[in-house]
């Protein structure tokens, strides 16, 4: 596999051909914020938090492959502004209330808001009516806390191989659904493996009975499962 030579934040690095900018940056010790990316799952470029500046053009780092001679900036004022706006819009789109959320203190959205310096939301909250589905015997989903990253969809499809989860609707009406938009407890394809809970970055997917700040997702276990399978093959 040919190596590519490129610059990240002024430093020359070499990367493998076909590798994403995100992977190349991380290999070189450069951190880029992400939300919909999860090690072990395919990338979809949905959240746009990993945007980088490639020669003056904005590109998602997770779905853009490295190319010879690229000049990449990962942390400019413009990028920081966009990232903060994205997180503010995520907060404005649903009913995120950290104070009473099961994932408070263990939430990637909350961590992003803190690290990006989001001290308030400048947009009007849409305050949509979102349901909570706790019809499953062990788990629940609260659409108020969902950011539509689709990590659960991909974990269910790519790792468990079941594809119970999918997305219905478009734009602000989009919702994660189980099977053919049935209550989770009636979704026959679900194996109750809990990988969607591991993958979820927020408190949207949780264990029944969880109270404030009790839900820890351990999302790193998805990559562990994928890697173990690869090694065993």
């Amino acid at each position, binding site marked *: 596999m040919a190596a590519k030579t490129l610059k990240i934040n002024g430093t020359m690095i070499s990367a493998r051909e076909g590798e994403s900018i995100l992977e190349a940056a991380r290999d070189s010790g450069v951190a880029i914020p992400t939300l919909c990316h999860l090690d072990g799952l395919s990338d979809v470029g949905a959240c746009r938090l990993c945007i980088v500046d490639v020669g003056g053009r904005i590109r998602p780092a997770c779905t853009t492959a490295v190319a010879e001679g690229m000049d990449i900036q990962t942390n400019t004022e413009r990028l920081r502004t966009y990232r903060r706006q994205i997180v503010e819009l995520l907060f404005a789109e649903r009913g995120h209330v950290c*104070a*009473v959320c*099961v994932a408070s203190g263990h939430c990637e959205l909350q961590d992003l808001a803190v690290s990006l310096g989001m001290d308030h939301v400048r947009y009007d909250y849409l305050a949509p009516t979102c*349901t*909570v589905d*706790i*019809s499953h015997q062990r788990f*629940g989903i609260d659409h108020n806390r969902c950011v539509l990253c689709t990590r659960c969809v991909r974990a269910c499809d790519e790792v468990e191989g079941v594809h119970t989860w999918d997305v219905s609707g478009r734009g602000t009406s989009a919702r994660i659904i189980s099977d053919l938009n049935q209550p989770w*407890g009636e979704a026959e394809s679900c194996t109750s493996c809990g990988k969607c809970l591991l993958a979820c970055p927020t408190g949207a997917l949780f264990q*029944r*009975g*969880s*109270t*404030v*700040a*009790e839900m820890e997702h351990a999302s790193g276990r998805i990559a562990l499962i994928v890697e173990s399978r690869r090694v065993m093959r």
Partner: protein
Amino acid sequence: MSQRIIIDPVTRIEGHAKISIYLDDAGEVSDARFHVTEFRGFERFCEGRPFWEMPAITARICGICPISHLMASAKAGDGILAVDIPLAAEKLRRLMNLAQIVQSHALSFFHLSAPDLLLGFDSDPAQRNVFGLIAAAPDLARSGIRLRQFGQEIIEHLGGRKIHPAWAVPGGVRAGLSNASRMAIREKLPEALSTTRSAIGHFKTMLDKHRDEAVSFGSFDSLFLGLVGDDGSWEHYGGKMRVVDSTGAILEDHVEAARYQEIIGEAVEPWSYLKFPYYKPRGYPDGMYRVGPLARINVCRSFGTPQADDELIELRQRGGATIKASFLYHYARLVEILGSLERIAHLLNDPDLHSKRLRADAGVNRLESVGVSEAPRGTLIHHYHVDEHGLITRVNLIIATGQNNLAMNRTVAQIARRFVRGPKIAEGMLNRVEAGIRAFDPCLSCSTHAMGQMPLEISLFDADGTLLDTVAR
């Protein structure tokens, strides 16, 4: 010409309220009303939430007494699970609730009411606050602040934080008490007891000085409601509801939480966001009853701890077997701090607290449940309906302050009639009206504005709405 005086906002209470005083043609007070001007909406927006989130959500009703909501809500949750929680969990919940009573009562007495009692109702309003108290009586103020801190620290030892710990949950509690925490609490107990004893001494001296206020601040016949233990002793967490009248006759006894609607009705008035609960058999508004420290002391036979029982005897000697004067809420509050500290000392020696079994696990086994506990300000009721999966479908909250609503209105009118004379108003007159409300330690929003220098504007209007006089501070 009839007039209306408005006190807006009422200061040194927890929440937002105003008072209207109506004067008749002769300048005499004809009526007075205590309006609660804020709206929270918890009963509505909790619908659709899983019931196990309710303790933490409803704790957010209040920054002063989140523990009270945590307890009543967790108890309602225990009912939905249909479990008896582990013994250690119950004792730990009791420990936290006692700490809550200590810290909240200390706040009410030392931070909010002591400026009136110590500096005088007619003293300079610029000084009549906790800062003025620190200047005038630094030792008393400092020890009061430390007493509140002691209660808060127990809450932190148990729940990980002083305010809004999501610690009590349906089925039990999330964490136990470490040995280090137990030792730390024990070490500070003697100072807390000594502060309380000294405050009780101070109050008795003040009582003689404020004899006029003591008899006119909401002294009237009413019913009293509170929890009592099976043996009729003082309760704050378990027990059952009892209602007595002002002669001490027991009207209701052993009322289980689930039966609260048989004895309590709720009325609404267009001029206040606070509901008006009343004792159902007597109807509205005749079924006026009081809850809180004074009511708990009136409904119980004894405290069950030696020092508090001694004080209870003296309190009853001064106020009567069933105490009617709302001014003595302050006294009852201090005696409750004493009794709570004694119970905390007792609990710290309880070996059951070492148990690792703290949380019962169960599914949804009941679709309706009521949790009752005693908040510092009185009996607190959380009533939930859930669907088959455990999502809340209906919530009814009966807050202690609401239950005192009729009595607070009566108190305001009584004090206004005694102290307010038109057409010129002295600030001290109006402060007495506010102080009458402070005796109940109302928690209206459940966020504190413990500042004595909030803007207060009182306007005098005639019947046509023409401004006659304005007093501002």
